[in-house]
């Protein structure tokens, strides 16, 4: 959408603004560095195996071919990995929004109570615990509990995001005036009803931010699924890419088609939800 609006040349009368031309040119050149790996990925994936084998990144596909996608799709059994990734991501998105918003609401409304105040700082501590530090005992424990599978990974994604999400939700909740819910309580609504009918809808923008970050983190994660999930047939899409490195060998078109299919959902989600990605990141870091 932004491409369309900015490329149509003088779209407003106040286009009299003097643009900083050197800065624009420098940034456009820098943007090429971002574009090159993505261009190469698309370019290589559209080649035939015969053409791709020479490993030249910038020769254009001749002839254009979609074979690599079909081959990558069946070779890696992508549909199965996609369903696992979608399963984990869906649980993480819903779980992160619900668990963090409930906790944040309880914390903000009971900030004067020690238990809730301390719980907040307890949850924040997760920000200082790197995953590698607790990874090994987690591998052991998920194995013992029968959670060495996608459910276990989704649960860990939820927990590791708790600190950041709860912080976002509490910051937002503090800005909601309490008078809104008091009038609802006078009408006899319970806390449960107040939360779901009033607060949760008001949290919409924050939930969108938390949701999109949950999606991106869960979808792209490599470390946790590769360590936690014991059955290779239940692996996620990014782990699949590493499992098939040897089999891709020099069939660059197949490997790049596979990479492209793995990154596409995240790119599409980003383009659709850009606003929430950007606002979430800046608010989360500055608050």
């Amino acid at each position: 959408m932004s491409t369309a609006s900015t490329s149509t040349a003088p779209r407003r009368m106040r286009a009299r603004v003097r643009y900083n031309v050197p800065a624009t040119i420098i940034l456009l050149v820098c943007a090429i560095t971002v574009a090159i790996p993505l261009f190469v990925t698309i370019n290589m994936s559209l080649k035939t195996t015969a053409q791709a084998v020479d490993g030249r990144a910038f020769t254009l596909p001749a002839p254009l071919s979609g074979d690599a996608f079909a081959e990558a799709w069946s070779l890696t059994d992508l549909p199965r990995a996609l369903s696992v990734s979608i399963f984990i991501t869906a649980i993480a998105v819903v779980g992160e929004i619900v668990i963090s918003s409930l906790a944040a609401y309880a914390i903000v409304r009971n900030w004067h109570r020690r238990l809730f105040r301390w719980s907040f700082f307890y949850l924040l501590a997760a920000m200082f615990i790197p995953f590698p530090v607790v990874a090994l005992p987690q591998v052991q424990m998920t194995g013992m509990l029968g959670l060495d599978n996608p459910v276990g990974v989704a649960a860990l994604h939820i927990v590791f995001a708790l600190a950041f999400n709860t912080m976002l939700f509490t910051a937002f909740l503090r800005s909601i005036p309490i008078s809104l819910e008091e009038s609802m309580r006078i009408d006899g609504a319970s806390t449960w009803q107040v939360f779901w009918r009033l607060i949760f809808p008001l949290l919409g923008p924050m939930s969108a931010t938390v949701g999109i970050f949950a999606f991106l983190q869960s979808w792209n994660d490599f470390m946790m699924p590769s360590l936690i999930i014991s059955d290779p047939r239940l692996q996620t899409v990014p782990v699949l890419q590493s499992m098939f490195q040897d089999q891709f060998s020099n069939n660059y078109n197949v490997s790049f088609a596979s990479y492209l299919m793995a990154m596409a959902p995240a790119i599409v989600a980003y383009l659709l939800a850009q606003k929430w990605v950007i606002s979430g990141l800046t608010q989360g870091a500055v608050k």
Partner: protein
Amino acid sequence: MSETTSTPPRASTPQRSSAPPPKESPNSPKIDPIYYFFLFPALLAFTLAITVPAIVGFGYSFTNSIGFGDWEFTGIRNYIAVFRDEGIVGAYLFTLGFALVTVIITNAIAFFLALGLTSRIRFQRTLRTVFVLPMVISGIIIAYVFKFLFSNTVPAIAQTLGIDALSQSILANENLAWIALVIVHAWSTIPPALLIYIAGLVTVPEEVYEAASIDGASPASKLWHITLPLVSGYVVINTILGFKGYLNAYDIVVGLTDGGPGVATRTVAMSIIRGFEGGDFGYQMANAAVFFVISIVIAVLQLRLTRGKASFGS
């Protein structure tokens, strides 16, 4: 009463600099028990998934456990061994150096991109969309893409141009492979730093620059004397977040160099996990405990060193 509103100044204590946290009064109104039910899932999940494993793991760091079966208590022997293990010490030195270089390069580039993106440029929104995009791409996958570029494309271009130094893949050179890691990490992690800098730069009021221009300040001195001090808080955030991320580098390293050639680019996270996969549990938990302490010390040091400059938060 239920919110922490600022208390009005009291005559008896006129010189209080900051309000103390509100005390829990014994006769505060009854709490709706459902709040405990709201908070409970988060606390339980956190305790089970992080606190318990952390404590259990710390306990195992004093044993010779291999992850299953019998084990014996060995005291601090693992810790002594960790400090004598050249592979592990090497991984620490490499990770610290790598994190330092990457955090400097990433922040410098992100800062100048943010300056550019907040100035009056054409295609502002499109450019921002493009520059943020790398953030949403899986680290291991982009590492594979770059691996292809470094092993095939860069040497091919270098050969046609006759640059001998780059005609071999830098990934195969144990003195240069780290540069590839820095490049890919920068590519992938500039976006969050960039967005934070943009958020900081838009808070600097235009009038400040106008006043400086009237006084005849050059663009460079405006940047150094006005912009940088005003966004120093954001520099601190980016340094801390960035350093934390690079210390834990794993996905991109696995995809790009897999710690090689040899163990030249092995990070601490990799040494912990590879060691574990090789059958050391207790030993690697000692490594992880050391790593945890070092991470915390670095975070605290960064906060201390920058205290006073940072003007963010409440």
